[in-house]
């Protein structure tokens, strides 16, 4: 299985409803993330794309149960390992950037402290050395005045700056092989969105990261991604190279999705 870093295989799952019944939400989801490539997982809200990503980390909601399938990371089934093994992978091998970075950072600790905590956890060393690394990471994601910014709290950051800090934490302070980005630009200004996407592409290339971008922004996908996975209602509809998906979609849903986004762009 050379060339594939992560493979989701026939992954199915369901939510416990309040009446104690299992409501299936994921149906035989299968896709592959090729090593070094940037793969987009696209689909509308509720299609299950984030749920699969959270499952890779073992941080899916408590009411969710996996009913079948495997998630293979370098030939290890992530669904079969215990919490301790999973924890050793988090941050070190697989890392994640979340939507709404200001909420995803802890409100009562400085941004620098949070990065430094992660640095100490992943690489050891003393507090002040970790803080220096945190400031360095903030500098690398082009946050101006990183020394001052490191002493500030998340609420003092704009959405875009907070997302840069989040990316610094997930991709630089952690040194993962696989970086998953869950709608990293949702809720940001359009100009900021493209800055953030540029940063992501740059870092991925520099570090040779395998990236999985969960999004519904097809314009971004066409521009920067190598592979596309289209999901709808808990199923993978279609997978292929970006070129193939955009020029010759085989499924009706994919065509409708593309058409919808082109309509939006035409209207804009």
């Amino acid at each position, binding site marked *: 299985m050379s060339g594939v870093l992560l493979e989701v295989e026939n992954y199915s799952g369901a939510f416990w409803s309040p009446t104690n019944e299992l409501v299936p939400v994921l149906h035989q989801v299968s896709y592959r993330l090729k090593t070094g490539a940037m793969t987009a997982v696209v689909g509308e809200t509720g299609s299950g794309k984030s749920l699969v990503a959270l499952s890779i980390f073992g941080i899916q909601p408590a009411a969710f149960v996996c009913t079948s399938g495997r998630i293979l990371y370098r030939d290890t089934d992530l669904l079969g390992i215990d919490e301790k093994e999973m924890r050793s992978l988090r941050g070190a091998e697989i890392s994640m950037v*979340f939507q709404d970075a200001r909420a995803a950072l802890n*409100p009562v600790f400085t941004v620098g402290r949070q990065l430094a905590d992660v640095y100490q956890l992943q690489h050891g060393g003393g507090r002040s050395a970790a803080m220096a690394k945190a400031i360095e990471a903030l500098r690398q994601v082009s946050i101006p005045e990183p020394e001052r910014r490191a002493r500030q709290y998340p609420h003092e950051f704009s959405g875009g700056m907070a997302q840069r800090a989040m990316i610094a934490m997930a991709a630089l302070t952690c040194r993962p092989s696989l970086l998953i980005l869950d709608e990293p630009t949702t809720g940001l200004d359009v100009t900021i969105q493209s800055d953030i996407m540029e940063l992501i592409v740059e870092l991925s290339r520099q570090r040779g990261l395998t990236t999985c971008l969960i999004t519904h922004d097809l314009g971004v996908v066409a521009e920067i991604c190598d592979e596309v996975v289209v999901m709808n209602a808990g199923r993978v509809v279609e997978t292929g190279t970006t070129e193939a998906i955009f020029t010759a979609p085989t499924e009706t849903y994919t065509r409708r999705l593309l058409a919808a986004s082109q309509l939006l762009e035409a209207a804009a």
Partner: protein
Amino acid sequence: MLLGRMIFRRMLWVFPVAFGVVTLTFFMARVFNGDPTELYVPPEATDALRAQIRARLGLADPLPVQYVNYLWNLLRFDLGISFTTGQSVAADLWDRLPATLELGLVGLSLGIATGIPLGVIAAVYRERWPDFLVRGVTLGGMALPQFWVGLVLISIFFVSLRILPGPVGRLPIGVPLPAKITGFLMIDTLLAGDPALWWQAVRQLVLPALTLGFSTASPIARVTRSAMVEAMQSDYIRTAIAMGHGRRVVWFRYSLRNALLPVVTLIGGVAGHIFAGAVLLESIFSWPGLGQYALQSIERSDFAALQGFVIYASLLYVLAFLVVDLLYMFIDPRIRA
């Protein structure tokens, strides 16, 4: 520094609030207990005697003059004379304060030291047996009246098991108090070089402190639990887990700090309540504190004593919430902005 200025500004607020409190107390006392003269004279007293007493109590003056006199006296810590003890009310309160503070501090510490960990445990083991246990016990702690819990403890540990002394106050009957230095028996007995007396005082303190601790720990545990549950479901905790942090760091460093905010507010209110004197608790344990003083002043219609107590208790709340607000500034950076 910005934080210093904020603290200063917040502390300045104490003065208008305190002024409002004492003003309200004054007018409430005049409205609800218009003329306490009747309390001081026998029913067959002549009108002349009544007028004389009224003048001596300062009640003959017009209301604004009374109010100014009252404020002026307050500034000199003159709360009037209690006609049951014959002492100045300020001195009475000062005498009884250490008993209430000592019991309150020990009870509150017990409550915090058990309530917060229990709340964390319940949140961590949510919907499993430790959670059910904590929720059951704390429900009891909130629903059962303090005096009833106190009585049950007395009947178990004093009446049945005979391992703890009876509810006769801070020391066994007939044992003289050590020389008053701090007023706290835990400290004064040691300063007097009398460990045996210290031990006796500790044994007297156990049951009332346990009662107070139980009823204090219960709301603290419940609020800690719900705040922890909320924090643990937040986005920032998901981030911390995704970055590889272990459970302990996630619980005690990243969640608890956020969850402490509502807990601190609650503790402020509880502390105000405790240090104003747990009235029934002190009565049951014959604890010579402020709560008992207040109860006696009500029973005997001791006007000045009651007014003094109300002023003390209200100012105490003002102080408790000042401390809460200051703690908030240290815990939550968003408030400093």
